[in-house]
């Protein structure tokens, strides 16, 4: 479960995130949308401990990210916007590295890695150095590394970048299954069709402020009042 309480982030005089409060319950798929530079990635980086908030709190499974970062991060599977990997490690080594950071037992880690290699169809690339990977392959490895420890909270920034349709389909199915298993998924994306397909609730951020937050049913009603297209709703709200 994820709870953002009056979250604010300032960079000097620029307020990147302005008093944002969001709650994502267990088993819920939350879509986080906004124009470029709205504050989506900044919000996510605060949730994952990469940024410190200026004010406000973030609770991951009841743990304050700033006060109890280790406990909070133990529950998080994070996929960043750019899938940077350690270039000198192979994909398999990176996965072992990731699992080790979450203190996973070697035997279960080995099994889990083999499962994920099959699941994401990584194939023989797994034993090549990641410096030779395409962006899509890097993305698959990063997503696999985020799911290794069976996290209860999945935070993803632009998950479909670089993925072919087959891989994108697998990712979508996997994430949806995770919510059925009780995990909370917080996904930032520009892809409106993906949001419509997967999300239970949507939040739209603009200039650091949350300007819209509601269920997909409410969003459907909003769509019908305009022209039935999510794109029109988005453009109307963020103009």
């Amino acid at each position, binding site marked *: 479960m994820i709870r953002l309480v009056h979250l604010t982030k300032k960079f*000097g005089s620029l307020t990147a995130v302005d008093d944002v409060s969001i709650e994502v319950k267990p088993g819920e798929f939350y879509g986080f949308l906004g124009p470029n530079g709205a504050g989506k990635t900044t919000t996510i*980086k605060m949730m*994952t*401990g*990469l*940024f*410190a908030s200026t004010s406000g709190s973030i609770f991951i499974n009841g743990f304050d990210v700033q006060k109890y*970062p*280790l*406990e*909070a*991060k*133990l529950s*998080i599977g*994070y996929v*960043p916007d*750019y899938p*940077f*990997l*350690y*270039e*000198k*490690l*192979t994909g*398999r*080594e990176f996965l*072992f*590295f*990731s*699992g*080790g*950071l*979450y*203190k*996973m037992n*070697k035997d279960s880690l*080995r099994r889990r890695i083999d499962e994920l290699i099959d699941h994401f169809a990584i194939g*023989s690339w797994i*034993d*090549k*150095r990641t*410096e*030779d990977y395409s962006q899509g392959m890097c993305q698959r490895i990063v997503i696999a*590394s985020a799911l290794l420890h069976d996290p209860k909270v999945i935070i993803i920034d632009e998950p479909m970048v670089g993925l072919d349709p087959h891989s994108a389909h697998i990712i979508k199915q996997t994430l949806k299954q995770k919510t059925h298993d009780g995990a909370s998924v917080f996904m930032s994306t520009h892809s409106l069709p993906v949001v419509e397909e997967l999300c239970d609730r949507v939040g739209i951020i603009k200039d650091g402020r949350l300007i819209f937050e509601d269920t997909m049913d409410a969003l459907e009603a909003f769509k019908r009042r305009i022209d039935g297209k999510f794109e029109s709703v988005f453009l109307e709200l963020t103009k």
Partner: protein
Amino acid sequence: MTEILHILRYKILSFIKVNIDWHFESAVKNVGSFLVYTGFSIGTFFFTRGLIAFLLEEVHIGQFLLHRFISMLLYVFFLSVNVGNIIVSYSTLYKSKEVVYLLTAPVSHTNLFVIKFLDNFFYSSTTLFLIGLCALLGYGSYFQHSWTFYVWAMMLLFIPFMLLAAAVGVIMLMGLMKIAGRIGARKVIIGLGSAYVLSIYAFFRFTNPMKLVNEVMKYYPNLNQYFGYLDPPFSRFLPNHWAAEVLYWTGMHNGTMALPYLYVLLGLCALSCVGAVLLARRWYYPTWLASLDLRARRAATSEGGGIFSMAKNSMLGHQTEVLFKKEFWQFFRDPSQYIHLSVMALLMAIFVGSMMQLRTIQVNPLLQTISYLVIFLFNAFLIASISVRFVYPLISIEGESFWKIRSAPISLHKVAGLKFALAWSATFVIGQLLNALSSRPLGLASILWLSSASNTAFITLAMVGLSFGGGSFFATYHENNPIRVASSQGASLTFLLSLLYLVFLVSVLFIPVNRYFESVFTGASLATSGIVTGVVTVGSVSFIIAGLSYVLSIRSLKRDF
């Protein structure tokens, strides 16, 4: 030309925007850097001037020997710049993302090469320029040269000398890339390494500095004559010899003798630069493609085996184990790391080998003190160099992938602590080996040997601390080439602070060591209390430096990523 200037203009603009920042923290950093650079410049000036005065007025080695020593230093300097440029140029010319971008733009390959060559040369040479300028000022002021000397010596001697080393390096690199395409990268690297080892060995074997000194000293005290006939024939074809000869004849106020060497040096520099550009016109793009091909052809690396395999269990905790193994593979799979380490190890081995052949005669306590401190300080200098080169980049080379660790449930103290411990352990071993082997010829009494071993341990702590702290504070995650990181402004500042620490060492150790040698010489009761006090002082200050640096590291690591 317009194209080159256009691209260079934007590179300079972006450099200025990145480095000139009016925020308080950055202003403090910049002012601090300025003060340290200024202090170091002044120190280099006085050190050079003082050393020349000492060698000529106290030891009376004469101008000829002085300039032969300068020639030897310049040879090592030339090779360092040459090897360094080959290694850095490989990244700049063949792995840089900027090259990939510019290749997709309508920029000629030759112009692209020129831009990247200049980028590489100036990026990695700023500190060397400063050191060279200050040393030149110290040298010139001793001989009371006019201001014109400094201008032409810098513009027509020092810079062309470095440019020659860099141009030759880049030509060699393109040739090596061509060959590597046929015979494989590994054989080329081994061949190159062997060639450098042989060239250093051959230079010192055939120049035989000790023999030269002995031959010249036969004419003592009439040493201010020209002994050029004693030079081995091949040395006259080396750029370091020409540069030293220019300085020598200028000092003798004989410009007529200096000019031919200057012309040869300038001519060869111009030829090398033009040659590099002409070669790049034919070879740069094909070798760039070959570098892609080499990477693609590299056989699928099976998971690193042995005890460092990620899949194998170990006695370490899960997090410690994977962090340690990651560091191991990151280092030993990066040729720029292990090759450079091998080169430094070789240079240290040569130094130690030379030291072990020394025979010291205990005549003068002051000379004994100086001998002891010079060797000790040189060891400390080597430790500082290793620390800046390999420890300073430790945080930066995490690169953008650091998100994985930063978002993982692992304490930053554990991450920093492990990196620090690994760095210190390796440097400690190197430091102790250096100390043990280089101190043997001095025939030190156990108290002195023990104190130098202890001080060396403290020095490694301080140097590793400074480099780790500096590397964390000035971390640049978008630049994960360790050599470029170790050549950055932050690294230079850290190195200068390390050198300040060396000055502190001299100030603390000189008097007690001198008193000790005097007490041995006069047969009085041994003055050991000062030695012990010196060790305690060095140890205390080193721990403080390491502690403060560690705190700085943690604070820096907690910054927004």
